[in-house]
């Protein structure tokens, strides 16, 4: 048999009707994740056309985007950003009731950001096709799943038929060789990769990440890397499952148990690219030379080492970005003071991310005048973090510890920066206004964000990891 790539194995396993020149493949979906923002219009189509949800058992909904991260007020109610936000949350609740879909609602101890709770529950598994009306669905590819973001019309298609129409993308493999240095994380790998291939470098591709540096990553690091593949334009990012994957999943709510678990693991162990598998494009990146990265522009590929300076803007687009960001070329990044720091989002809000940030914040103080927000990705992350007293480390440093949600990643729920503010953020998008109108976003790892909060300026976290008291 012809050697196959991981992607090809996953693809072929789910094709209901083959692709032809005239029509895309009909692809079966094993897990459909739903949230409040991109689903209401899809449910409306079902209602108009008198259709039911075909597989409620393969559908899971959560509340995250418009959801408040502050506890209930004295009136016993959550404070929504607007009546529309509240209506949207209520609409999803109603739709889930009407269509018999499991919803992790605001009181559910398993609620959280859609791409954090899917894996945590064990709903995300190797070999599955997973979609969600959200571009960061690529996160789930970290488990060796074929996971991709879809639009609202397609959300309707999946609700009604459990299938999507999809053309087979081209394939790319990116090897990360070598060992990551101290203070360097999966986020820095992702930013270095995007800087190298460009914000559209992965357009039309499914990317498989491989190599010793990827194998060495924890599941959480792998999720961070796959999460950011869409920032290089690739809808799909994936990593072959291995022992790290299996031990992370074992015992979670929705994974098989006993002999079924053993059977699943043996099947999952075949999900990798065969020797001799071919790719439309292959690329090698030396992970050992990557240092903590930050972005200095308004596109995620405008990334550079945090201990350096911004390169000269050359195109019209780059000059406009530079003017918006106000980060001077030829001046060290650390000359930029920081107004706000956000640690959270589906990219970096898991327990290990919070541990990295706490390591730097513990026993130190957030610089006066800097507002720092730490938002766990899920209720489960929140509980684990609190069990380790991470929240105390944050609060004693002067940071705010919030309830789970997307929060300042998309700034829909009322958590946002003010015009002109410079925000160092562990989220995934530095687009103009993404974190509030006129906000200047600098993307970074949790360690870099925490170090920048303490120093009050853009800071390479390694400065704090070598100092006495650090580590």
């Amino acid at each position, binding site marked *: 048999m012809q050697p196959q790539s991981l992607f090809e194995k996953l693809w072929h396993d789910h094709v*209901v*009707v083959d692709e032809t020149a*005239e*029509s*895309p493949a*009909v692809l*079966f979906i094993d897990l459909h994740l739903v949230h409040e*923002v*991109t689903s*209401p*219009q899809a449910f*409306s189509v079902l209602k108009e*056309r008198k*259709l039911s949800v075909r597989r409620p058992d393969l559908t899971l909904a959560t509340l995250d*985007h418009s959801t408040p991260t502050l506890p209930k007020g004295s009136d016993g109610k959550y404070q929504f*950003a*607007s009546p*529309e*936000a509240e*209506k*949207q949350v209520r*609409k999803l609740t109603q739709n889930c009731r009407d269509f018999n879909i499991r919803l992790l609602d605001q009181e559910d101890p398993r609620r959280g950001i859609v791409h954090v709770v899917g894996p945590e529950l064990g709903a995300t598994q190797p070999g599955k096709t997973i979609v969600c*009306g*959200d*571009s960061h669905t690529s996160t789930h590819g970290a488990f060796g799943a074929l996971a991709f*973001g*879809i*639009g*609202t*019309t*397609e959300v*309707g*298609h999946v609700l*009604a*038929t*459990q*299938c999507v*129409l999809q053309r087979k*993308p081209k394939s790319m493999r990116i090897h990360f060789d070598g060992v990551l240095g101290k203070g360097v994380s999966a986020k820095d790998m992702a930013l270095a990769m995007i800087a190298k291939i460009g*914000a*559209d470098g992965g*357009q*039309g591709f499914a990317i498989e990440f491989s190599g010793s540096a990827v194998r060495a990553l924890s599941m959480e690091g792998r999720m961070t890397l796959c999460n950011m593949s869409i920032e290089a*334009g690739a*809808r799909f990012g994936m990593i072959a499952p291995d022992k790290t994957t299996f031990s992370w999943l074992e015992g979670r709510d929705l994974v098989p148990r006993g002999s079924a678990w053993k059977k699943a693991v043996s099947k999952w162990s075949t999900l990798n690219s065969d020797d001799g598998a071919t790719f439309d494009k292959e690329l090698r990146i030396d992970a050992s030379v990557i240092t903590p990265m930050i972005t200095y522009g*308004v*596109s995620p590929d405008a990334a550079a080492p945090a201990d350096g300076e911004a390169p000269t803007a050359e*195109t*019209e*687009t780059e000059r406009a970005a530079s003017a918006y960001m106000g980060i001077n070329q030829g001046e060290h990044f650390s000359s930029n003071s920081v107004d706000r720091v956000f640690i959270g989002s589906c990219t970096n809000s898991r327990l290990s991310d919070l541990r990295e940030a706490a390591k730097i914040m513990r026993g130190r103080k957030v610089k006066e005048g800097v507002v720092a927000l730490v938002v766990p990705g899920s209720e489960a992350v929140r509980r684990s973090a609190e069990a380790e007293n991470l929240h105390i480390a944050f609060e004693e440093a002067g940071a705010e510890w919030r309830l789970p949600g997307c929060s300042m990643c*998309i*700034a*829909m729920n009322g958590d946002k920066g003010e*015009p002109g503010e410079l925000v160092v953020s562990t989220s995934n*998008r530095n*687009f*103009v*206004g*993404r974190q509030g*109108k006129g906000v200047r976003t600098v993307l970074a790892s949790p360690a870099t964000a925490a170090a920048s909060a303490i120093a009050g300026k853009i800071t390479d976290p390694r400065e704090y990891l070598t100092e006495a008291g650090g580590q």
Partner: protein
Amino acid sequence: MAKAKTTYTSRTVVLPQDNIDTDQIIPARFLTTTTKEGLGKVAFYDWRYDSDGNLRDDSPLDGFVKSEFSILVAGANFGCGSSREHAPWALSDFGFSAVISSDIADIFKSNALKNGLLPIVVDKKAHRELLKSPGCDVSIDLEDQIIKFGDGWTCIFEVEPFGRRCLLDGVDPLGYLLDRMPQIQKFEEARS
């Protein structure tokens, strides 16, 4: 889906910036809507309105008769970022029927086609010419996949064949999928 026109003739609006993301096309704070309608008024909101909510004098998207300018020409990597279908909803409602770039993000392209907004990718040379000539007359022929420019030159493009057929013949993709239910059922049975 109703049948679309085969020819789109209009003048162009040019937004030359590269990487125009869907957060620019419709900022996230307008995503709390639960319907598709009326999003044209918030299309490119922060580009068009000042902080008091007044239309800016220098808005590149206002100050002309919209019905005469229904083709948007944009810089490379248009529609990147968030998968929000609100972006093509907003652009269509604003009055655009096609967007032309050298490079359009995958999810946006797919979302646009499903909403009758033609995503058209042209080669770099044609793209440069279009960026240089805001307001020029353009005629897009979806049947023959060719663009004709006012001054006589032409350029070919390719739209994903299924999406194109949906537009031209009024094929409804959800209906198409529902028609494949016997195969879907068979697939499910074989796996369980």
